[in-house]
């Protein structure tokens, strides 16, 4: 009976792609139907399925085939349970997608995760551990006197931080928000530090948003080509290149960046982008509705 169910599922899926399996899927359906109506499966499909499996294994290893043959009932139960579990999981995903617009659920981490790090960095992994930063310095936009403050920790070469950009823009356009960006370059992304430095240097020439937009737009090139790409972008943003290069080589810039990194660590940031909406954390590029939910 178990075999009938698996055979039905497996052949059913295969028959979507190849007509060859359709009669077998039909047989599987008949078999499952008979099983459900308390009649014995009379199509011999279970045996066909078992021999297909055992024979294919036998070509590689007679010893494993022997084991599979002996434990076939157990193995098929495991498969059935896994299949049911994976169906359940998919259904949960569909539900989440429908309700939250994200198949991984409301707290899904579609982010650039901190990994291969030592020390404090990357010790945390859950939104409940996040601590809102106390200092409100950073790259600012919006209305600084608004009573809605959104702080973002982001990395310029993280695809997810980039993905959240349209959202940030929409928030800036549609709400009266005090927006503060704190660069948090992830060490596991190439050239993330240089990119962050470049945007900090752009602030000094009042070109922060131009630089930020261009870096995101050419994220891959920045990540691969580093300084070369950054200089090109700075130049095309209309920056004074002497000042820019001076800034890039200046210890002060490095110190400023380190300050934000320390703030990120203190906030237990483990992934980018991470937002704090009036102190309430939100990890990953979420939908505008979720932001609005937290804003309320």
């Amino acid at each position: 009976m178990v075999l009938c169910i698996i055979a039905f599922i497996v052949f059913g899926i295969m028959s979507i792609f190849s007509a060859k399996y359709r009669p077998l899927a039909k047989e599987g359906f008949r078999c499952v139907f008979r099983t459900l109506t308390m009649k014995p499966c009379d199509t011999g499909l279970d045996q066909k399925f078992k021999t297909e499996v055992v024979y294919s294994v036998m070509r590689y290893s007679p010893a494993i085939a022997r084991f599979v043959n002996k434990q076939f009932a157990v193995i098929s139960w495991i498969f059935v349970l896994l299949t049911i579990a994976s169906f359940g999981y998919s259904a949960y995903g569909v539900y989440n997608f429908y309700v939250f617009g994200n198949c991984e659920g409301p707290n899904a981490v579609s982010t650039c995760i901190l990994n291969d790090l030592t020390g404090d960095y990357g010790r945390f992994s859950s939104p409940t551990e996040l601590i809102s930063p106390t200092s409100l310095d950073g790259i600012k936009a919006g209305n600084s006197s608004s009573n809605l403050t959104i702080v973002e920790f982001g990395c310029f070469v993280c695809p997810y931080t980039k993905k959240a950009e349209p959202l940030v823009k929409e928030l800036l356009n549609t709400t009266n928000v005090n927006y503060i960006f704190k660069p948090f370059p992830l060490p596991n992304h190439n050239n993330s530090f240089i990119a962050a430095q470049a945007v900090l240097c752009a602030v000094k020439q009042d070109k922060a948003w131009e630089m930020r937009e261009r870096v995101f737009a050419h994220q891959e090139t920045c990540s691969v080509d580093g300084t070369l790409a950054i200089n090109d972008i700075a130049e095309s943003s209309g920056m004074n290149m002497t000042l820019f290069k001076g800034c890039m080589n200046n210890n002060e810039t490095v110190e400023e960046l380190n300050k934000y990194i320390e703030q990120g660590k203190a906030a237990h940031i483990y992934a980018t982008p991470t937002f704090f909406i009036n102190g309430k954390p939100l990890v990953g590029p979420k939908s505008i509705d979720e932001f609005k939910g937290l804003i309320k």
Partner: protein
Amino acid sequence: MNVKNDFPFLAKNIDLVYLDSACTSIKPKQVIEAEKSYYEDYGACAGRSSHKFGAKTSEKIENCREIVAGFVGAKSENLIWTRNTTEGLNLVANCTDFQKRKTVVTTINEHHSVLLPLLKLRDTGKIKLKVLKAENGVVSLEQWSDAIDKETALVVTHNSNNTTSIKQNVKQIAEIVHDAGALICIDGAQGVPHYAVDFGQENFDFLCFSGHKMLGSTGIGALVAKTELLKSMPQFLVGGGTVKTVSLEKVVVASDQSKFEAGIQHYAGIFGFAAACEYLKKIGMKNIEAHEKTLSTALLSELKNANATVYGDLNNRGALYSFNLGNAAPHELALMLDKEGIAVRSGFFCAQPAMESLGAKNGCARVSAYVYNSLEDVKKFGNALKKLSELYC
């Protein structure tokens, strides 16, 4: 014996080892050609139309009747065309007179085609049925003698068994039957294809067999019966061709065997059936028997070598064995062998009581060889079985 080249099916499936001949045999090109020739060169009705193609067809059909009857040592007037063995057995069961004597004796080893018509008659109260038990697939002559008496109207049994290929001494059984004044009907489905059967000399009353198991066409068989029985027995199926004259008041039944041949017959099949008999005769039934003996010995040694369980007594065998292997379910075993390019049958072989009496409660696999099989085929079967024995034993 190397006749493989005569079999187009085998030529088209070079890698196939066909060992399911007890179910049905492969057909040689001579049979296929003969069948084709009916459609291409004859095309008409037999025994009805007087135009030249009608006459030509009638003549050929009678010629075929002579060939097929002759093949089992009978005369053409004793042969009725049937669809298969099953139809012949049904005819005998349903047309025998059970007024004076009511008992029919048969064995547990029979094919469903023997058992079911008899069980039906028993269940409707028309006959009393004695079913002889078997010891390891064998029913002894003493059992027959003890069972047959003055109450016995009819004995129905096989000459060769389809689950074990064990041959019965039907000539002696016929003697016992006739001494008691009863009739004997032989299910020759598995005997006639494999060795010389002589209806007259073995003194049968009825003999049924199928074309398809002996290289002939499907859908055609024969019932051979003694002349007086054909005369005295009532009709079975009636219709076109079974009468002399018909009015609404009176039907005058045909005086010869055509009274049993209702409707247009399977002419092409009859052509093929006769061609098969000629083909077998040309090879010689003695040679076929000897060839199968060799195959039988080889098969048994391969089965033993793979530690298979073989059912039934090992004496008086043809080239057919029912077997199981370790913990494999019979259908699994057959499917696995199929993957190795070997065709065998699995299940109960339409003889469930027989299989159960042999101790194969869940059925088994059956290997059966014929003229076109070689020792090389048997070797391939043995190798595959050996491989599977590592999986299942």
